[in-house]
């Protein structure tokens, strides 16, 4: 039985490799963070390439990739950030289906674009779901493989492959879409935009910000012109969506990302449009961000072709 189950071993885990899916929804009112893939479009693409449904768990690979050894024959695909890939001695590429034989190694080399890649295996990775999701939330130690980032020696299995692999004719297009060194993202007005001076809001829309080193899956701390909030403002905590642009008392800016807390008490001037959250997921510390105001209609239209539908 067990020998028939597709599986692989992590020989080198890379910088930060975690199991992720579409997120742990439905429990935020109990304080459970959503987590899930930072670039949901790439996660979905990797799954589609191997014939999985979007909810199937993939490996999120961050900045420095892993080396994996296949214990059985497996159909896999890597989407998102572009890495130089080798399947044993053969150069292979991202955004395409790979057929690995037992004993073969997939080694991630130099990264040439983007920040996060997603490795899907036909059948999906089968770590035990926690509250309906396999996503790893490192801070609460939930999901994934015992709530942890993957380490050398870890073994992962995949479920039975059911779906039919899909061709991804636009692979080249996705590679071109990856941000190089920074990105302009569309934002909608946040729930507290009205509490800020218009001149301050202009500043957010005209300045260039840089992602600070301590940024992580929880949020991006930005360097750039401070956004002074109203004096003596004290807000009651409220639900926190992904992409919320929060202003600290110091005027500092934090963008809420996948592992955000379920609620926050900092005022929020803007919220990044869903279509551009995946773009943020492909940015790394040191990359720049510019905010461009848009309306609900533009945000809605941007969903078409975002890879999220």
């Amino acid at each position: 039985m067990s020998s028939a189950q597709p599986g692989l071993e992590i020989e080198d885990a890379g910088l930060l490799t975690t199991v992720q899916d579409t997120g742990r929804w439905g429990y935020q009112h109990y304080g459970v963070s959503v987590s899930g893939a930072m670039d949901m479009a790439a996660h979905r693409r990797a799954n589609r390439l191997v014939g999985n449904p979007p909810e199937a768990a993939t490996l999120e690979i961050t900045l420095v990739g892993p080396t994996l050894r296949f214990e059985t024959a497996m159909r896999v695909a890597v989407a998102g950030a572009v890495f130089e890939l080798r399947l044993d001695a053969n150069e292979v590429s991202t955004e395409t289906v790979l057929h690995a034989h037992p004993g073969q190694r997939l080694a991630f080399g130099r990264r040439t674009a983007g920040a996060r890649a997603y490795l899907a295996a036909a059948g999906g990775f089968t770590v035990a779901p926690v509250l309906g999701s396999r996503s790893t939330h490192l801070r609460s130690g939930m999901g994934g493989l015992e709530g942890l980032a993957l380490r050398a020696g870890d073994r992962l299995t995949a479920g039975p492959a059911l779906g039919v692999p899909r061709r991804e004719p636009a692979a080249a297009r996705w590679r071109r879409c990856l941000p190089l060194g920074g990105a302009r993202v569309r934002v909608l007005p946040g729930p507290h935009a009205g509490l800020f001076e218009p001149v301050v809001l202009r500043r957010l829309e005209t300045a260039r910000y840089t992602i600070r080193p301590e940024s992580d899956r929880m949020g991006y701390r930005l360097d750039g012109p401070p956004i002074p909030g109203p004096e003596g403002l004290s807000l009651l905590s409220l639900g926190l969506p992904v992409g919320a642009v929060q202003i600290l008392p110091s005027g500092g800016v934090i963008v809420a990302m996948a592992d955000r807390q379920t609620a926050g008490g900092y005022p929020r001037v803007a919220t990044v449009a869903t279509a551009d959250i995946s773009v943020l997921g492909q940015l790394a510390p040191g990359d720049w961000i510019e905010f461009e105001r848009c309306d609900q209609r533009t945000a809605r239209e941007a969903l078409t072709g975002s890879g999220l539908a």
Partner: protein
Amino acid sequence: MTGVAPWEWELSRDGDSALLLAFESRLDPGVNARCVAVAEKLRGQRIRGVRDVVEAFATVTVHFDPVLADVDEISTMLRRLAAETAAPADRGDGRARREIRLPVCYGGARGPDLADVARFARCSEAEVVERHRSVPYRVYMLGFQPGFAYMGAVDPRIAAPRRTVPRVHVPAGSVGIAARQTGVYPVVSPGGWQLIGQTPVRLFDMARPDPFLLSAGDVVRFDPIDEASYARVETGRS
């Protein structure tokens, strides 16, 4: 209830994947009760694309999948529920809340900040404990980590502010005070609240059919126990 009427509310978009229903922005059991009531009713509906309904102190945030959801459908439902719960005849939640009693071993190694809180309150440690245990607390919302309940209101006399330097390691079950709020850390984590005791009861336990002990709207009372009882509860649990 404070009898303030009418109950105003405002519905707005929060980005393109959330709707925000905001009641009067103040820390008030009646305001919060309306949030809890709306959130519970909305969770009972099966609306396409709705992923999460999160009640907070004075707001309800509805998270949805912008590809699948019909925003107008959710807005209409939210307006209806907000108007319903704003009716003068509806007192608070409209149903009895659960009361949960949590045994707490106060002071010593289990409550390392009890002495500091006593200094803040200019009273004995015993009086801090008495003032903390003698009132029922409302669970306003959960957040920060799985099962962490923000409860209030703490007696103003013992409402010590957060520690200036947060602890890196707060043990699970630690009972803390932060100004007028009190809470229990469900799992080991960093934290800045003043720790006055510890409960052997697990607030979050994946092994239970219902992993979360508390929900927004619940009422919590703390019962002082000694070290021996603490050990008994802890042993009995496993």
